[in-house]
C-alpha cells in the first residue's frame, strides 16, 4: 500500500474494474425494471462464443478500432471530429469505385484504392480543418453538416455508377475483382473468415502510438491539444496543426470501411454498414485515446454487438439492451476514471502533507 508504484497500478486497475462492475449493476437494474430474465441474459452474454462468433467479433472490432483511432487523433489535438461517419462513407465509396474499375492489376489495385480512400477521407475532413483554422468555424458543427452532405453526395454518385443484379432491389458499385481482395484467415472450421485487414488496423494503431509519443510532430500535436497558448509560446503554428490533425484524422477515417469492402461485401451498396463513425466516438472515449485502450474498447463493443441476436432469438430480450449496456459502459468509464483520479490526487495530497508534517516535527526536535 505504501509503495507509490503499487498504489498507481492499483488505481489504474480500479477505474476500469469499477466501471465494468457499475455498468453490470445498472444494466441488471434496467433488466429487472423491464421484467426480463436477468440471469439468462447474463449467462448468454457471458457465455463462451463459438468459433464463427469469435471471427465476427474480431472483424467488427477491426472496423470499430479504426473508427476509434480516427476520433482519438482529433481528441488528442482537442478537436471533436464527429464527421468520421461521413468521411468513411465518402472514402469507402471512392475506394469501391477505384477498386471496382480495376485500372491496375491485383494487389497494386488494392494499394491504389486504399490510398484513394485515405486521400478522400483526408480531403473531406480537411474542409472542416480549414474552416476551423481560417474562419474559426467549430469543427463540431461543420463535421456534422458535412456528414449530411456526404450522404447526399455519395447517394447521388452511387446511382450514377450503380450496377444491379437481376431480381435484386439492392444497388451497389461494381464488385472488386478477386485478385484485388484482401484474403482473410479462418479460426477453426467456422464459416466466417477473419479480415486480413486486421493486421493493417494493428499497424495503424502502432503508427498512431509511435507518431504521437515518439516524434516531435506528435509532441507538438499533444502540446497544442493541451494548451494553445503554451503551444504558440513554444513556436508551434496552431493553424497548421489544426489542419494537419484533421487531415490525419480523416485519412484514418478513410480506412474504416475498407475491412468490410475488401474482406466481405466487395462493393459499396445500399446495405453497406452505416453509423460506424459514431461508434468510434464512444470507443475513443472508452479507450482514453490510448491505442491499446481503444483496441480493448473495440473488442468489448464488438463482443456485445455479437450478443444481440442470441439475446433476441434465444432469450427473447430486446436487442436494445446491448445498446443500453454499451452506453452505460461509456458513462461509467468516464465517471469512474474521474472518481479514481480525484481519489489518487487526494491520496497524494495526504502523503505530501504527512511527509511535510514529519519533516517539520523532525526539524522541531
Amino acid at each position: 500500500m505504501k509503495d507509490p508504484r503499487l498504489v498507481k497500478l492499483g488505481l489504474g486497475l480500479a477505474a476500469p474494474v469499477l466501471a465494468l462492475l457499475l455498468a453490470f449493476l445498472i444494466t441488471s437494474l434496467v433488466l429487472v425494471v423491464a421484467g426480463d430474465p436477468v440471469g439468462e441474459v447474463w449467462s448468454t452474454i457471458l457465455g463462451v462464443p463459438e468459433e464463427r462468433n469469435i471471427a465476427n467479433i474480431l472483424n467488427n472490432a477491426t472496423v470499430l478500432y479504426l473508427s476509434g483511432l480516427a476520433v482519438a487523433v482529433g481528441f488528442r489535438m482537442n478537436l471533436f471530429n464527429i464527421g468520421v461517419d461521413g468521411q468513411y462513407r465518402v472514402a469507402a465509396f471512392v475506394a469501391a469505385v477505384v477498386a471496382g474499375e480495376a485500372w491496375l492489376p491485383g494487389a497494386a489495385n488494392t494499394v491504389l484504392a486504399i490510398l484513394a480512400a485515405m486521400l478522400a477521407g483526408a480531403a473531406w475532413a480537411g474542409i472542416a480543418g480549414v474552416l476551423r483554422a481560417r474562419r474559426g468555424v467549430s469543427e463540431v458543427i461543420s463535421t456534422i453538416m458535412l456528414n449530411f452532405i456526404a450522404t447526399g453526395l455519395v447517394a447521388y454518385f452511387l446511382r450514377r455508377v450503380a450496377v444491379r443484379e437481376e431480381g435484386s432491389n439492392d444497388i451497389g458499385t461494381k464488385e472488386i475483382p478477386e485478385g484485388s481482395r484482401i484474403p482473410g484467415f479462418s479460426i477453426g472450421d467456422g464459416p466466417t473468415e477473419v479480415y486480413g485487414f486486421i493486421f493493417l488496423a494493428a499497424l495503424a494503431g502502432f503508427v498512431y502510438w509511435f507518431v504521437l509519443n515518439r516524434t516531435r510532430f506528435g509532441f507538438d500535436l499533444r502540446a497544442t491539444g493541451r494548451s494553445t497558448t503554451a503551444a504558440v509560446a513554444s513556436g508551434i503554428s496552431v493553424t497548421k496543426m489544426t489542419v494537419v490533425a484533421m487531415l490525419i484524422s480523416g485519412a484514418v477515417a478513410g480506412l474504416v470501411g475498407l475491412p468490410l469492402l475488401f474482406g466481405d461485401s466487395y462493393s459499396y451498396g445500399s446495405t453497406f454498414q452505416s453509423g460506424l463513425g459514431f461508434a468510434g466516438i464512444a470507443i475513443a472515449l472508452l479507450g482514453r485515446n490510448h491505442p491499446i485502450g481503444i483496441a480493448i474498447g473495440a473488442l468489448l463493443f464488438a463482443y456485445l454487438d455479437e450478443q444481440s441476436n442470441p439475446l433476441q432469438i434465444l432469450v427473447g430480450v430486446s436487442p436494445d439492451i446491448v445498446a443500453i449496456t454499451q452506453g452505460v459502459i461509456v458513462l461509467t468509464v468516464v465517471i469512474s476514471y474521474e472518481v479514481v483520479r480525484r481519489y489518487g490526487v487526494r491520496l497524494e495530497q495526504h502523503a505530501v502533507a504527512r511527509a511535510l508534517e514529519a519533516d517539520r516535527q523532525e526539524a522541531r526536535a
Partner: protein
Amino acid sequence: MRKTARFAAVAMAAALTLSACGSDDGADEGTDNGDAPAATSDVKVGMAYDVGGRGDQSFNDSAAAGLDQAVEEFGMEAQESEAEDGEAESAREERLRTFADAGYDPIIAVGFAYAASIAKVSEEYPDVNFAIIDDSSVEADNVASLVFAEEQGSFLVGAAAALKTETDQIGFVGGVETPLIQKFEAGYVAGAEAVNPDIEVDVTYLTQVPDFSGFADPAKGKTAAQGMFDNGADIVYHAAGGSGGGVFEAASESDNLAIGVDSDQYNTADPSVQDVILTSMLKNVNVAVYEYLSDVEAGDVPSGVTTYDLAVDGVGYSTSGGFVDDIVDQLDEFKQQIIDGEITVPTAP
C-alpha cells in the same frame, strides 16, 4: 479510507446482484414452459424482420400479420428478431444462423437487405428452408423468393388519382430512393398518364441510401407533402412506410387527398385522417407469408420465385371509405388489361 469502503460497498452490491441473477434462472425457465401454447404443429418459424420490426405500421407489420394468422391457425411456434439500423452484414448472417442452429425451419427474411446473407447462409444449412421477401436474386433449392408487382398496384392508384384530381397535378412521396420504391413511382406515373397524358406528377424522395430514416420519419413526410399541396397538387401517393402518417396529416390540414400504401390504411391510420385516404395500394405481404407457411405446414415447402401480382390479387387497391366507388369500373378495366398483358407497366422511372 472512507473512499475505499465505498468502493468495497459497490463491489459487494454488484456481487449480490450477480448471485441474485443466478437464482433467477430456474424460476424463469419455469414460466417459459408454462407460457408455451398448446402446439398442434411441429413447425418452428424463425422470422427475421428488417429495421423497424413488428410495430412499424407498414411493411414489417404486414409480414407479422401473415405470421400471426399462420401461428393462430396451425399452432406453429414462432420466434422473431429484428434488424438494427446500421448493423453489419455479419449481424444479418448471424441472425439467420442463430435461428438455424436453434432448430427453426423455415426461416423467413423480411426485406431485400437480407439477399446476400440468405445466399450465404442457405448454402451453409442446405437442410433448412428459407424464404425472402422483395428479392429474387437468390437461386437455391431451399430458398423461396416472394416478390410483388408493386408497379401494377401503383398503376391502378395512379389511374385513380388522375381520375379524381381537379388540378391535373398529383404527387408521389417515396421513403428512400431505392430501386424497390422506384417501382412504385414508375407504376404510379404510368397509371396517371394512361388516364391523362398531360398530367403533372411531382416526385420526391425523403432520404437517400444508406440513410433509411425516410421510412420512419412522419415529419419529413409531412413537409414533403405540404410542399406538393402548396404547389398545386391535390392528391399525393406515399410509398414511405411510417413517414406516410405525415403525408396524411398534410392532406388533412390542407383539405386535400392522399393515397396509402402496403395495407388498407383507411383502417390502420389515425381516425382523424381517415377521410383523406382516397384509396391504398395493397401489397399483401401478409398473404405471401401466410400462403408460404400454409404450404410448409402441408409438407410442400415452396422454392423458387413466387410473384404476387394483380392476377393472383397479391397487389391491388382498396375501396374502404367509398371514395373510389364511382371509378371502380374504370380501374377494374385497367386491371384486366394489365392481367391480360395488354398494358405492360414499367418497373423503373
